[in-house]
């Protein structure tokens, strides 16, 4: 769909191992600006590792990862920080800071990384909490939130700096179908309204089909298939077929 434009995320022959166990093997893919790429695959096939490589929480053993033209795995300090500021990350467990309230979780990046006044920070936090439907829960501690609320709070925190790129790790894991669909709606809204580039790791083929423009299927660290829903529907590989058809 968007292949004519310069890709904003490029993985170029990336490999990663933990000890002697290879997790990713020679994976190459790219994501165009405004595109939503869904990474599908069985557990332990390197999907979350791929996301962490994209934001340099992990470094590749081989290959290059370029974000907006910058080779992120070679960056350090301020330069790395500058590239990471373009990105938001929704973790599988939401990873909310458990000793701070929902409000403080969202305010932290604004306090640390922007020159906004207290009033502006309050307004930004309220705006994003309103977007995810948690405005009445802003003074709650993470432990007081349900799984779906944690995911929404994590999403609000990932969005609070208005990133160009949103990396989402298992948005529907551990959630019922209705709550998972609500999270998908929020992602879809983000994609349509703000044209945010997204990479979404998921097991949920139904949700992926709703939000994604293209789909990559990983198996045992290798890229099995990459393409649109239509292309994957006609892919002959049994694993691709099973993963993409499951709902």
């Amino acid at each position: 769909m968007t292949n004519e434009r310069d890709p904003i995320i490029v993985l170029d022959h990336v490999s990663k191992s933990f000890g002697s166990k290879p997790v990713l093997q020679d994976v190459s893919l790219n994501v165009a600006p405004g595109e939503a790429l869904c990474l599908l695959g069985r557990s332990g096939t390197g999907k979350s590792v791929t996301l962490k490589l994209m934001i340099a929480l992990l470094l590749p053993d081989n290959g290059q990862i370029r974000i907006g033209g910058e080779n992120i795995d070679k960056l350090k300090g301020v330069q790395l920080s500058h590239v990471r500021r373009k990105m938001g990350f929704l973790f599988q467990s939401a990873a909310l800071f458990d000793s701070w309230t929902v409000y403080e979780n969202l305010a932290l990046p604004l306090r640390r990384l922007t020159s906004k006044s207290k009033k502006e920070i309050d307004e930004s936090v309220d705006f994003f909490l309103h977007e995810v439907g948690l405005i009445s829960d802003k003074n709650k501690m993470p432990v007081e939130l349900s799984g779906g609320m944690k995911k929404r709070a994590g999403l609000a925190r990932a969005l609070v700096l208005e990133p160009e790129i949103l990396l989402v790790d298992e948005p529907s894991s551990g959630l019922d179908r209705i709550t998972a669909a609500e999270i998908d709606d929020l992602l879809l809204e983000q994609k349509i309204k703000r044209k945010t580039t997204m990479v979404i790791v998921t097991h949920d083929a139904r949700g992926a089909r709703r939000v994604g423009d293209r789909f990559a299927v990983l198996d045992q660290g290798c890229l099995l298939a990459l393409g649109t829903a239509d292309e994957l529907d006609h892919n002959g590989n049994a694993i691709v077929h099973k993963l993409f058809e499951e709902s």
Partner: protein
Amino acid sequence: MFGAAAMIPRVQSLAFLVEIGPLFAGLLVAGRVGAGIGAVLANMRATEQIDAIDAISIDSFNILVVPRIIACVVALPLLTMFMDFAALLGGFCSEFVLSHITLQLYVTRAFMNLEWSNFIPPTLKTTVFGFIIGTVSSFYGYTTNEGAEGVGRAATNSVVVSSLLIILADVILVKCIFLIFPESAV
């Protein structure tokens, strides 16, 4: 021995101020705070909270580790003084029960011939203990990668290694204090 009882307050004050107060404060903080720092940071690592801080381009080391080390360095001398005070109060109470000594006489005897060098350097040496507790506990907590199992291991390692290093540092620092302040050697 004749007159030995009169020496008890002085012996107590010397023991508490020079050695027992600083060392016990260090070991207690290593047990209580060191385990806490190790467990909290390891839990943050296991639940991806540290990754989340890094992902929003904030230096997690600066906001999680540095303040904890500074807090330990600042808190240890203050806790040591509190410990010294509590120990001397306990010493007075026991002496009062046994020999009905007055507070004024206890204080006079306790601080008789006591030098500042018997109090200031031993108290300040606990900043080193605080640094050891802060760095060791933070190291074990911050660098763990064993999930939930690593939380317990980080807490245990923090206490054990901090305590051992505190005892080792104490031996070295006592020698250094005696070299720098020879008058403090009794």
